[in-house]
């Protein structure tokens, strides 16, 4: 058996183990809606831009909040990331040790909320617009 075949066999075995769900690592990401970038909302000028212009360019908001002076439109974007690894996974292959609990799992997760908020007065003119102040997901 040549060296090339030996490596292929090892690679195949490792991939098999990962594929059957024995993977000691995992990466997951969850996103809700699409992100709005500063250049997407650069056209908004408080005191000038109207409700119809905002709706035409950005689409329907995800939430409307009524205020005493008008209305607030929120565009939500959530970005969640998760990473997990099990340092005890290799112990599962050691006969007697595998019978005892041997999980040593390290997980890290983060959720970033990037809400874009536009406030309108009672006449439908933009009073203010701003992105929410939150940290991006770190995981």
């Amino acid at each position, binding site marked *: 058996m040549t060296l090339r075949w030996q490596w292929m066999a090892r690679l195949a075995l490792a991939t*098999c183990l990962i594929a059957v769900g024995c*993977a000691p690592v995992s990466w997951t990401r969850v996103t809700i809606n699409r992100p709005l970038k500063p250049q997407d909302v650069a056209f908004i000028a408080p005191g000038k831009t109207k409700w119809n212009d905002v709706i035409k360019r950005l689409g329907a908001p995800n939430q*409307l909040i009524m205020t005493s002076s008008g*209305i607030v439109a929120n565009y939500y974007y959530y970005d969640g990331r998760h990473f997990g690894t099990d340092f005890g996974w290799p112990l599962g292959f050691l006969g007697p040790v595998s019978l005892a609990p041997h999980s040593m799992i390290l997980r890290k997760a983060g959720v970033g909320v990037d809400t874009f908020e536009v406030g309108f007065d009672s006449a439908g003119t933009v009073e203010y617009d701003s992105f929410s102040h939150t940290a991006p997901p770190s995981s």
Partner: protein
Amino acid sequence: MTTSITPKTPSPSPNLVPSTIGRRRLASKRKPRRWLQPLVWLLCAGVAIDGASGCAFSRGDLGAPINDSDVASIKKGRTTEAQVIALLGAPDTIHEVNHQEVFHYYRYALKHATVLVFSRVNIASDDLYVFFDREGVVDQVVFGNQTNKLKFQFWPFGE
């Protein structure tokens, strides 16, 4: 008395060069292990099958789909509240803006994919707002359809 000694193994032909002999020896060593190559191919086939079993794709919905044709049939200045309810059902939420009623219909869609150790879940919403005037007739229709752009993705990095 003469004794004749016959060699037990035939002596190499003088025509053979040493390098050829070396190759023959290697070939004789490899021969018994040839059965391992099909085994590796079998293992690769197993990887392909396992790879398929290491994949998962799923989708989910919250709320009824909002059809473009239904939205198009809501006419500004003509359609009434009762007609909107007959067409789309009861709204998910009702707001009041400047003494006007606003019906909000929404629907969430989810697409999830897992390939080996990588997973990604994409969620998007369709939002329909129907604004009514004080007489209960449609004043404005705002519809945002994001679920039609929703994709199955498994790679969790990047955009």
